[in-house]
């Protein structure tokens, strides 16, 4: 039995942003560990192994990168669902968004986000931010024990 390293779940509806994020993670060979979902409903289905993800291997990602503005269920709703779900409540979640709105930031922390990162407009800064987030959460941070089931 091989041990699967926990990966990164990227919930992002913009395909361009997905592409840029994966480019940024490529350098540290984190890209092949990224799973992409395109809205909040899919993100929860993935985490709960429901719907299209009911047959995926068990074990949850080292970190969920959540965009706020997404179709069907936005990032803040997903965050709320994660924190109120006893099986998911310790899941590390990072909001990765364009919004620097104070109310979004406050709301995220109130809901128990682990980090809040504003996507920089400038690509090099963007790459840098995503890389750091990826390295920290996927490689440096000690995940809660239940993730590596």
């Amino acid at each position, binding site marked *: 039995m091989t041990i699967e390293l926990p990966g990164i779940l990227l919930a992002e509806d*913009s395909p*361009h*942003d997905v592409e*840029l994020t994966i*480019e940024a993670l490529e350098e540290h060979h984190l890209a092949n560990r990224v799973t992409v979902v395109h809205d909040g409903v899919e993100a929860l289905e993935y985490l709960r192994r429901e719907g299209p993800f009911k047959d995926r291997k068990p074990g949850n990602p080292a970190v969920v990168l959540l965009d706020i503005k997404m179709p069907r269920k936005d990032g803040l709703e997903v965050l709320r669902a994660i924190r109120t779900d006893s099986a998911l409540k310790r899941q590390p979640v990072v909001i990765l968004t*364009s*919004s*620097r*709105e*104070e109310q979004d930031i406050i709301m995220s922390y109130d809901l128990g986000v682990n980090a809040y990162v504003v*996507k*920089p*407009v*400038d*690509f*090099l800064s*963007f790459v840098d931010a995503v890389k750091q987030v990826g390295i920290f959460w996927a490689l440096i941070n000690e995940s809660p024990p239940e993730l590596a089931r």
Partner: protein
Amino acid sequence: MSTEIATVAINDEHDAVYARQRARVIAELLGFDRMDQTRISTAVSEIARNAVQYGGGGQVALLLEDAGQSQLLAVRVRDQGPGIEALAAILEGSSVSRTGKGLGIAGTRRLMDHFSIESATGAGTTVVFAKAIPAAAPRVTVDMLRHLADMLAKTTADAPETEARLQNQELLRTLEELRLRDQELVRVNENLDTANKELEAFAYSVSHDLRAPLRHVSGFSELLVTRASDSLDEKSRHYLDVISESVRQMGVLIDDLLQFSRSGRTEMKITDVDMDEAVAEALEPLQAETDGRAIEWTIGALPRVVGDPVLLRQVWANLLGNAVKFTRRRAHAHIEVGARDGNGGHEDIFWVRDDGVGFDSKYAHKLFGVFERLHSAAEFEGTGVGLANVQRIVTRLGGRVWAEGEPDRGATFSFALPRPTKAPS
């Protein structure tokens, strides 16, 4: 052409009341609406009473003025009294009548379309005022005037009690009218408020949603550079540089716009603010720009104010940042910051003075507009949002901003903040 409709000799208060009644009846018959009837009869009563009180009596004449296209109801009140001395002050409304009652001449003037007064010491006073007959009313003909005169002859003067009752009704109507207008104002205000909020939300989401495509332009052109750099010729690389630079500029623009929109929307946290501290905090991030430059700072002691500390720091950051930026060409620059009393101690005035490039005072009104710039981007970078932000914040705090400048001599930016009427306990 002027035709006399009625004249009333006025020797005492009763006559003034009678003149008022006549004026109202005539105004009604000529087609004025109720509000105007009240205005006209009030004006007649006011001026007639003046003639009795100060001029010892005289005569009120009600006239139809025919000015071709339009017709007017004119009133001439003449007395043989001592004349009015401080006429200019009275007309301005800065002089209050001895009795202190009523509208006075200045108030009457506001009720009418035309007003003139002639007064000579010892030779009496003649006041003439007129109001245009509503365009919707039928044109007054000679026949109508004759009919009017007959009707006036038949109607006898009402008792003073009746007039008092009528005046009361007028007052109630006026109050009702005022109440309705008040309600309307509240409604208009609410609509404005909603429209304003919608506009702010719109500005926010526009600038917010612009960031995503901008990030993509930036990202993919950058990726192109890293991937194809070797196979690109110099010209192609130059194109990509231009794209990157434009993206960077637009990013700054959007960020500034977002900040501008935020400074209008965020709820203010009003508290006691140490302005010395606010200036010191605003200066900190400017360090990178001032390093290696010779700037002589003169910063006076500043009073504490009541305001939002975050927003006030933003005001200082913008003003000080501008001073640093626009003195860049001076080998030795001087920047002064100070404060003084304003408006008889009711406000604090703060100012930032520099000896930089200054500006032509004829553009002073444009300085505080959003995206207004007096310098090209090549000369001085910037988006034209900073001073708009300053104005918006200071205005939200109940203050005002202004600027003085001269090309190549420097500029002074000032803002005044009202002092609280009571010291916070």
